């Protein structure tokens, strides 16, 4: 994300906003839902800001007791992403065939490439995580946008530029190659409006942030 043309203060603001959204999406797709997550997702401020983007939830999310909802969503998350049996394996290597590969596969070429990317960033793959899992790739973007905001705040424009370039590369080489597809699968497959809507948000947001739409030239208001 370059945020070109915007004033320094507003570039920091935009980077922090992007970090917030990536963190949220990483949380939603990276691990089981909890009562706390459900509660905060139903806060007015959240619902309003999502509605402004045309994203809404249905009664199955909005009008169920939060403890029950967390339980139901946990089962749905399990069914969608964990199995046993048929499920959406949300790994880049399952969606994208590497050059030397005859077909996509779990822990394939992309997995190694993503791990290498994290190493270049100076990050260690968290224990018990697969490098190219949907949740972890989104979180990597959160880490990069966070660092970018910090550099901007410290007046280190060169450092912020390097991080912007890293994001751009990560988008081009990884996110854009498969996030739209996996989000489409979730939208098609999920019985829950929560996961359908969040998949739609993830697909839209990744595309927007990766194709430079958020360039600081965002219109103040959309007609």
């Amino acid at each position, binding site marked *: 994300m370059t945020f070109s043309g915007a004033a320094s203060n507003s570039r920091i603001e*935009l980077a*922090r*906003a*992007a*970090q*917030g959204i990536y*963190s*949220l999406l*990483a*949380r939603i797709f990276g691990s*089981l839902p909890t009562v*706390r*997550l459900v509660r905060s997702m139903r*806060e007015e*401020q*959240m619902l*309003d*800001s999502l509605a*402004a*983007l045309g994203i809404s939830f249905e009664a199955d999310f909005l009008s169920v007791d939060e403890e029950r909802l967390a339980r139901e969503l*946990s*089962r749905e998350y*399990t069914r969608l992403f964990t*199995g*046993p*049996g048929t499920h959406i394996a949300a790994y880049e290597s*399952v969606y994208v065939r590497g*050059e*030397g590969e*005859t077909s*996509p*596969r*779990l*822990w394939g*070429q992309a*997995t*190694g*490439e993503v*791990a290498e990317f994290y*190493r270049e960033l100076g*990050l*260690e793959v*968290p224990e*018990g*995580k697969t490098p190219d*899992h949907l949740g972890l790739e989104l*979180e990597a973007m959160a*880490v990069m946008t*966070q660092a970018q905001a910090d550099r901007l705040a410290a007046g280190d424009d060169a450092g912020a530029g390097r991080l912007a370039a890293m994001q751009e590369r990560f988008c081009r080489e990884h996110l854009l190659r498969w996030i739209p597809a996996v989000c489409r*699968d979730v939208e*098609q*497959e999920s019985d829950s409006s929560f996961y359908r809507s969040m998949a739609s*948000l993830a697909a*839209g*947001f990744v595309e927007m942030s990766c194709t430079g*739409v958020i360039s600081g030239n*965002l*219109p*103040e208001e*959309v007609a």
Partner: protein
Amino acid sequence: MRTISRRDFLRLGAASTAVLAVESQFRPLARAAELLEGGRSVNRTSGLPRSFLPSTCTQCPAGCGIIGYVEESRLVKIGGNTKHISNAGTLCARGQAGINALYDPDRLLKPLKRTGARGQDSWVEIEWEEALAEVAQRMAAARSNPQSLLFLTEDVERDPLGRRFTHAYGSPNAIGSAGIHDANKKVATSLTWGAAGDIPDVARCKYVLVFGANPLENNPNFVGMARRFVDGIQQNQSKVVVFDVRLSHTTTFSHELHYVAPGKMALVALAMANVIMQDGLYDRDFIERWTNVSPEQLAQHLAQYSPERAEAEAGVSALDIRRLAAEFASTKPATTITDSVLSGFSNGVQNERAVMLLSIITGNIDNRGGLCMPRQYGLDEPAPAPPQPGVSVFTNPENVAFPSQQAVAQVLRQAKDRQAEVRVLMTHSVNPLYSSPDEGLNEDVLRDENVIPFHVAITPYLNETAAFADIIMPETTYMEDWEIEVRPSLEQVPFVALRQPVVPPLESARSFFEIARDLASRIGGGMEQFFAFNSVSDYLKARISSVGGLANAGGLDYLKQHGIWFDPKSRPNYGSYEAGGFSTPSGRIEVFSPRLAERGFAPLPSYETVQAFRELGERELVLTIYETALHTDGKTGNCMWLNEIQHDNPALINPETAARLGIEDGDKIKLIRSSKSGEAKERSIETEAFLTEGVHPDVIAMANGVGHTGFGRIAQGEKFKKDEVRHRELRDANFQLVWWGDHGGTGVNAKRIVPIEMDPIGGGQAWGDMVVSVAKD
């Protein structure tokens, strides 16, 4: 999503940040990326750097040395370790298909808790913290009666951590399922020469008698034994004579095959022994010096087993028996190989002893090219060792005289009969609901929450048994795990080998070491002291501390680098008994077993008729369930490459028999258990007839390893559709090749109709005592 404005964007950003103060899971790199050890190698096609690590295969009991080749942290190939003393670089199909086991698309990678009734296949993912806390809480509460823990594993000897965990809890009930196959042989050899098992020195012998064994397809020491068997034939010109009920792969390498009526091989062996004694071809010195019988006493006992009787009852010509007896006794060195088609009967221990007698009377015992005793390092239990918790009805059932590997086939039935209380059942990478007899009964037991109030399954797969768990903890596979591995040496030089992770654990799978340590510390009550290892290295080092010489060579570091260690100066010490005698009460080979006499069994090697075989009806045949080279009972079910080769098991019938029964090749048939063969919940199975001369006319034979009702989509031959969204994880080209579901199906598990019946001496399952009537469907 519509186009976003700057204001909307900032607003959503602010709202998102307010949701949770999410702490990133990423940590800065503490050190430079830790590269896996090994030499330098690159992929010849992609040029990618390739690293490799030695480890140990556990796809079957043999424990071959393997090398895992890794590119970009993906395991791309498994090969044999040339430094390993047993397999010396060779590796079987099951070993190579270990990649399938690691990257199994149906593998469980998150802890699961059931949400519906037991066995209803309805699960929710839970965090490790919750899984560990709940299991520990249930186990702590149940510990007022520590014997109420029932721990089932594949083989207790190969699961030292499982046994330690069970004993530390205070329960003796660490039960292995391996005993259903090899208990009779272990007990027969223990009673006779004081060591469990044998190692035929086939590479150096001149003559081999194979009784109901199939070393080229299946053997406890599989490829190591197979290559030595072939070496013996090709380099040593050894003669091979096979007695079997079926034309196995081994017979294709043999000089003679003699079909023997099922369950009656001991008659042939005893008739040969009789000839050797009557004709004075025996080794008088050896018998007098090292056994507890005299040649005269033995000759007198064997007189009842004439070659003519063997011909009449077992169907091998008396002339051949006399000729083979003379050949065997006059060709030195000579040996025998035995396996489950000899010992898997209710008279299995006696059958084993009858064949062993041939090696004993000809002096082919623990000599170069003869029948050798197993040599294996005994490893220490790391201090502090948990106290031995005594015995229970599960470890020492009343109906088995000499329980060795315990009678796992019947433990669930014992639980059902309330012979002892079970509060917690822990199953560790074991699948009794596929591999044990009477699956229907076992399934009822696991379903019943009154009998089994709590079942935790520790396994990488949702196999038939884990499907009936309350909580499943996803365990690492053997490619991601540590253990010290010892096996009897095929070169008579003992060794120590290492199993180490060739790749890091996938997702949140955890090793049994971590699970056991974590549970022990949460259960507490003194249990934690037995798992107070700072790291897995400390545990491994303690295990090998007593192996002299290894420490000087570099200890654990040496094993990490080479995968195996043996004393380089050591040479096979044939005739090891000469120094201190045999480890029996008399110090001699107990051809006459006072221990058997004491318990009311025939003390000299004898033939006892299997009751069910006394009179076979017009439509009755004996069911033989045979092992192939491609599957390990209940374990390799979801491995893609193996299923691609073997996914079906039609019933083999001799054409003569088929003509009598009016059955043609490819007919749908039904196998109905005869009332002579006892009771099991399911009475019949349906399959297809496959006519072949390669099976004894009284036998109907089916392969083991297929016919899964659970375990995964490959095991059940589900066809995967390329573009179906929910099958995306199976877009791997391999998995699109599952074609056999529509072409003949995925076989039938014949063990379902086998009742739980054991040899009363050794406790081994009497798989072979199975009479079925065959009907056209």
